[in-house]
Structure formats: structure tokens, C-alpha cells
């Protein structure tokens, strides 16, 4: 059943992106919006738009009943959840299908399976995909923990089973340290969480974040190679690129094959991403989790492969089989995406909503700007701070970085502070240029480069 009218259950740049893909497929669009988004670009572009409630996401974009009503009342036959909000909500995916509509994404069962950390880890192990060595579940005694650590080797992380958000973590680098820290960790877990249960995981130091993009139709799965997203602040990605500058061809092949094996094992349907930690000193990779949705950084994959991932996921949801064979997916050149957020990097990334008084968007060969902005638009304070994504593509990584600098210089967003100065400083950094970074690299760099983020960046040579 081909989709005729698609309801977009999201906002911001991804809503704009989905609208464009749908339009190119000849599908009519319905944009839902909260009252804070009635002037949004997504609303302006859609064929129809429908008010789903107040600004608070819990009362609008997360309100499943209201979104389903909007689909029924507008005659939409499919719902695209974008990323965030309801994108990985198994209950919503099931409710959409129960209402006789198409959910543009995987089945509720796939979402549920991959959303459960233990189940996902078990599925990975069953498919032969390595996971971070450690205890599969909680360990009650120090003896049991030590027996395990003896096998994984040091350093290890001792984590409280009931903890979260980085709380209740100890790092042990030797057996002595382990014996010293284990009782402490247990006592602390008991005091803080009322549960002394612990688990142990090998600490992968200086690991890089690499993820593989897959597309499945419920029968077959292909990969569209990997992205590297190691530059992160508070676990939020700020700069993403493809291909990864750190993978040797043989490792890339094994990594991508492992992602396909796991996605096939769960009969995956739609666009998905398998996230890994990669240790480039040992060339080992470990599966972390699967994101069962389109991701923010999908454009870098589109730029190097020429595959329109959003169009493909809509086609698959409409009942088509994969139209691309694995041997037709080829990497051409290098692509980098930087996230332009309404945050002031010189003031500890303070959010900065406001009105866009002037906007100048970079153009030219190999430059793409996926955004929700237009001149005169007032960015609401109620949602995340992503304003747009600047994506460049060029023949190789050094050329792509130079193109990124050129495009950043052309990008002018006036009226609010953005993270553009951060990206300009990163593009100029020798370590970034050499591809020498890992997931814990950016935060200390920000501490030592505070001045670079307050100094005015070099003026654009080409003023439009």
C-alpha cells in the first residue's frame, strides 16, 4: 500500500526534511504543530497543518491520542515520527498500526527489543556482534565480580545497578584498586539507591563513537557504511562525519557486516543505526545500542552514498522492498555535519532563543543546510536548541574541512547566539584536522580553548 498522505509528528528541521522527501515522492503532507510552532517553516511548507495543543511537548508532540486524532481527521494514512518525541516509543508505533495507519519506522516489537539494554545486548551476542565485556546482569558479591574482572582485564568500571546519569561509577585500574573500591561502591550504591547491586564493565579508554547506518525492509538489510561522532559535549554530538577517519578498510568491512547481521537477526524494517565504541589502539569494536529511527546526522551518509535515507524509509513503510543492493552502495568523498544550536559557546553554551533578524545561508557546490530558520522567525524556548545542520561534502577529508570553514564563514544568523564559533575553532584545530580525537576529547578541549570561543572569528571574505 503506497502512502498518499503523510502526517509529520515532529517539528524543527527534521519536520522540514521529511516534508521535502514526501513531496518529492508525490505524497501530500500534514504537519502537526504546538501553538509555539504555528509560524514554523514546517507548517509553512506542509499541504495542511493542524494544531495539537500547547507549547509543552508533553501536551502536544508527545500526546499520542491527539496525534492519532489529527491523522484521522485529516485522512492521513501514515505517520512519520522523525527523531526524539515518539520516534522510539513502541506503544505509539503499535497504536498507529492498531488505528489502521502506517508507522514510518520499525515494528513496535523491534523498538521494544532494541530499547531494552539487556535484550539488545543478548540479541547482539546471538548475532555474533561483540559487546563491551562485563557482567550481563547484576553481581551480588565481590567474589563473583572479581572472578569476572579477572577475565576481562583492567581497567574496569564498577557501576551501581540502580544508578544512572553517571552516578555510582568507580574506575579500577588494578586488582588492588578493585578490592579497595568494590566494597565502597557497594556501600555507596546501597546508601544512594537503596540497592547494593553492582555490575562491572571493561573501560574502553579513549574510545571513538562509530555507528553504522542500515536500511531494512523486514526481509533484507543493507548498510550504508559508518559515521564517526566522537566529538561530543555532555554526550551530545556536535560534529559528525563519514566515513570515519579512524577505520582501516578491513575493520570497516567487519564492523558494517556485524551491523547487517544484527539488523537481519531482528528482521529490521526502516532506517536504523547501530552504535559502537571503537578502540583504535586494538582495532576492537563493541556494540552499544541500536537507534530504531532516522538520526540527526543522517545527511553525512546521504552525501557520501547518494542515497536519500528519508525517502527510502517512506518507500519501505509504503510496502516497497529495498531498491538498492549492497554492492551498489559506494562511498564517494567525505562529508562533515556540524550542529548549529541556539547556544552561546562563550557563556557555557547558555541557550539563546530569540528572533532571527537576518539570515544568510551558505550555498555553492557540496554545501547543504538543513534548517528550520527563516528571516524574521522567532525560535521558541520550549524545545531543543538545534537550529540547523550545516553539511559539506568534498573529495576528501582535508578538502571537506576547508569547505566547512568557507561555508561557516558565509553562514550568518543574526539576532541570537549560535554554536558557529565552536565549529570554526574545531575546524582550525590541528588535532581535529588530523582526526585525532575520541569521545572524551572535546570537554577538556573546551576548557583550554575558552578564549577561542569568545574571540570574534575571522571575518567572512565573501559577504553576500
Amino acid at each position, binding site marked *: 500500500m503506497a502512502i498518499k498522505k503523510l502526517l509529520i509528528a515532529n517539528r524543527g528541521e527534521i519536520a522540514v526534511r521529511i516534508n521535502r522527501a514526501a513531496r518529492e515522492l508525490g505524497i501530500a503532507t500534514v504537519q502537526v504543530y504546538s501553538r509555539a510552532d504555528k509560524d514554523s517553516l514546517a507548517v509553512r511548507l506542509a499541504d495542511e497543518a493542524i494544531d495539537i495543543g500547547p507549547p509543552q511537548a508533553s501536551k502536544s508532540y508527545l500526546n499520542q491520542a491527539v496525534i492519532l486524532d489529527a491523522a484521522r481527521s485529516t485522512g492521513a494514512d501514515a505517520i512519520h515520527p522523525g527523531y526524539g518525541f515518539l520516534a522510539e516509543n513502541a506503544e505509539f508505533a503499535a497504536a498507529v498500526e492498531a488505528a489502521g495507519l502506517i508507522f514510518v519506522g520499525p515494528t513496535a516489537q523491534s523498538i521494544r527489543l532494541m530499547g531494552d539494554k539487556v535484550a539488545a545486548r543478548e540479541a547482539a551476542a546471538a548475532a555474533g556482534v561483540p559487546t563491551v565485556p562485563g557482567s550481563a546482569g547484576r553481581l551480588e558479591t565481590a567474589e563473583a565480580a572479581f572472578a569476572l574482572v579477572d577475565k576481562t582485564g583492567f581497567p574496569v568500571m564498577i557501576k551501581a545497578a540502580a544508578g544512572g546519569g553517571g552516578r555510582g561509577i568507580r574506575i579500577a585500574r588494578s586488582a588492588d584498586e578493585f578490592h579497595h573500591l568494590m566494597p565502597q561502591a557497594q556501600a555507596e550504591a546501597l546508601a544512594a539507591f537503596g540497592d547494593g547491586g553492582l555490575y562491572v564493565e571493561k573501560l574502553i579508554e579513549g574510545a571513538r563513537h562509530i555507528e553504522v547506518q542500515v536500511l531494512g525492509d523486514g526481509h533484507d538489510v543493507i548498510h550504508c557504511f559508518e559515521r564517526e561522532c566522537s566529538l561530543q559535549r555532555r554526550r551530545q554530538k556536535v560534529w559528525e562525519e563519514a566515513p570515519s577517519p579512524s577505520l582501516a578498510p578491513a575493520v570497516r568491512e567487519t564492523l558494517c557486516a556485524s551491523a547487517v547481521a544484527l539488523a537481519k537477526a531482528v528482521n529490521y524494517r526502516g532506517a536504523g543505526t547501530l552504535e559502537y565504541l571503537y578502540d583504535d589502539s586494538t582495532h576492537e569494536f563493541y556494540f552499544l545500542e541500536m537507534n530504531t529511527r532516522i538520526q540527526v546526522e543522517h545527511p553525512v551518509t546521504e552525501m557520501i552514498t547518494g542515497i536519500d535515507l528519508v525517502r527510502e524509509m517512506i518507500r519501505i513503510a509504503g510496502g516497497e522492498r529495498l531498491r538498492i543492493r549492497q554492492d551498489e552502495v559506494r562511498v564517494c568523498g567525505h562529508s562533515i555535519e556540524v550542529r548549529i544550536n541556539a547556544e552561546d559557546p562563550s557563556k557555557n553554551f547558555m541557550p539563546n*532563543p530569540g528572533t532571527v533578524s537576518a539570515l544568510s545561508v551558505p550555498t555553492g557546490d557540496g554545501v547543504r543546510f538543513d534548517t528550520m530558520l527563516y528571516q524574521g522567525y522567532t525560535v521558541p*524556548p*520550549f524545545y531543543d536548541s538545534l537550529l540547523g545542520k550545516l553539511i559539506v561534502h568534498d573529495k576528501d577529508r582535508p578538502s571537506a574541512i576547508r569547505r566547512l570553514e568557507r561555508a561557516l564563514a558565509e553562514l550568518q544568523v543574526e539576532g541570537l547566539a549560535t554554536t558557529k564559533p565552536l565549529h570554526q575553532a574545531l575546524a582550525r584545530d590541528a588535532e581535529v584536522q588530523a582526526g585525532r580525537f575520541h569521545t572524551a576529547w572535546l570537554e577538556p578541549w573546551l576548557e583550554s580553548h575558552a578564549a577561542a570561543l569568545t574571540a570574534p572569528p575571522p571575518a567572512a571574505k565573501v559577504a553576500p
Partner: protein
Amino acid sequence: MTTQQIFSPLPGIFYRKPAPDKPVYKNDGDVVADSDTIGLIEVMKSFNEVKAGAAGKILRFLAENEEAVMAGQPIAEIDV
């Protein structure tokens, strides 16, 4: 005694509680110190505390819990 207003420093969502399952920071009639937190403003997923800004007694809240507020909007009245 004079009545003074506490204004929201930022645009966003106003919360009277530190977490949904916690009690409100302050009730009408509570005595507050200058540095006491009376609520939170969520702006672009970051949470910022709103301080009383003066010592006195809370007369009433002008913004509801989880209400969308603008920067500079009065959110409570205190007797100083």
C-alpha cells in the same frame, strides 16, 4: 511592607517543583530569603533556578506550574 514582583529571567516553561514527584519549592504565605529558589525555568531543555531575589513572604504565584512564560513576566508576588 511593600509588594514586589518576581520576574522570570528567561522565556520557557515554569515549574514550581524540582521534580514531578517532589513537593513545591514554596507555598503561598511561606517566608523566603533572598537566595531561596522559588521555581525552575526550562529553556531549550536546560533548567535554570529562579531565586526570590528579596527577603519577605510569598503572597501568591502569578504563573501556574508548567505554564509557558516569557522573559520579564511576573511569576510571583512577595511582601518585603
